[in-house]
């Protein structure tokens, strides 16, 4: 499990992941907040439905893509959390197009 080594994490805000309420430090980015809250499965790949989560944390790999407030393909390691943010696991299924 990821955890914080800082005794004081500062102000917490509320975000929602798959409907579940998470209280996370205000200055975290979305990827860090989710990892810290125990979420490592961010999305499914389009072609083979493989589970993926953050890899590089510096905006290079695009594996941390997730649905934020209804929008797919949000690069979660580059976006700060904000109060009330609704986050969903990203499933872009190409099988619907056949």
């Amino acid at each position, binding site marked *: 499990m990821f955890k914080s080594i800082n005794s004081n994490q500062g102000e917490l805000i509320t975000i929602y992941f798959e409907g579940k309420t998470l209280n996370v430090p205000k200055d975290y980015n979305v990827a860090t907040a989710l990892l810290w809250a125990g979420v490592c499965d961010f999305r499914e790949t*389009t*072609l083979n439905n493989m589970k993926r989560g953050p890899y590089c944390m510096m905006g290079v790999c695009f594996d941390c893509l997730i649905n934020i407030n209804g*929008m*797919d*393909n949000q690069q979660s390691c580059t976006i700060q959390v904000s109060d009330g943010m609704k986050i969903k696991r990203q499933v*872009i*299924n*190409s099988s*619907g*197009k056949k």
Partner: protein
Amino acid sequence: MKYFDTIVVGGGMIGASIAYGLSRSGQKVAMFDEGDNAIRAARGNFGLIWVQGKGANSPAYAAWTRQSAKQWPNFNKELSELTGIDLAFEQNGGFDFCLNEVEFKQRQALMEKIHSDSQGDFNFEMLSHDNLKQLLPNIGPTVAGASFSKLDGHVNPLYLLKALHKAFKQLGGELITKPVTDINYKNKVFQVNAEMDEFTSAKVVLAAGFFNKTLAPKVGLSVPVYPQRGEILVTEKVKPLLDHPTGLVRQTREGGLMLGDSHEDVGFDEGTNIREIQQIAKQTITIFPNLKNVKMVRAWGSLRILTKDGLPIYDHSDSCPGAYAFSSHSGVTLAATHALDVASYIAKDGLLPSSLACFSARRFDV
């Protein structure tokens, strides 16, 4: 020295279709292709199998296009079964948008002309904004409407090219990755030089895109073509949102959107123009406002090989019988007829049918 029944110069969409078709007819074929950074129109292909709007001034071209589009389902089946490559082929009709009422009226007139020229073989529908919205609920409020034709479809052009190459190889064809430097015709035999090597054949098909212009005179032909650049944008993968190909946008099997169709006259610059990219982005948002937050991951310019009248060239040489030159910017749409029909004409008696006579480059000799 190696001997072949036919040498095909060019491994792009046209060359590979013909080469595959010739191998399929039992010929011993060599296909010459350039290296990794060759100027390739095929790479910039949008992937449309497109009938509507084509050949308004040439009923023969319209008919030729329809012939190929109709062959596509069987061609797709044959090629994917042979190679195991799924070409992501779909042919459930395509839309071409009209951004305003004037465009709508012009389109309607154009489509009606093609329809009447075709003696009922080409059919279409004009859809007003409201009718279109029922089929494509995400269209923007300012879109005037669209034309629709059932014969239109799309395919992954890159997989098509790969499949043609693979099928060609599977049937015993030989791919030679060397630039052709010279062609000579002596004693009814063609000598093709590529770097230090020499190859001979009974027939030669020139399908080398812009390079045809240089090669054609060596076998008594002329191919007056010029390059025109088109920009294509590709987006990240998104949920399925477009079931039909359109003149501006299509969604690939993988989920990415291809956007494109700019026309720029820029010579041999394969680079990209930010203004053109922006124009395509703007047009796309006008037609589908819901795509505004979709990200473009790649854009590239590639060259189309055009003739003055926009029609293809299918020519055979009188002075060097057995030499052919082909040029077209619709390599995907016409792939089926190139592989199934044109190749077998060449393989059988070497005569192109009279229906293609009007596409001889001699039409420019006036």
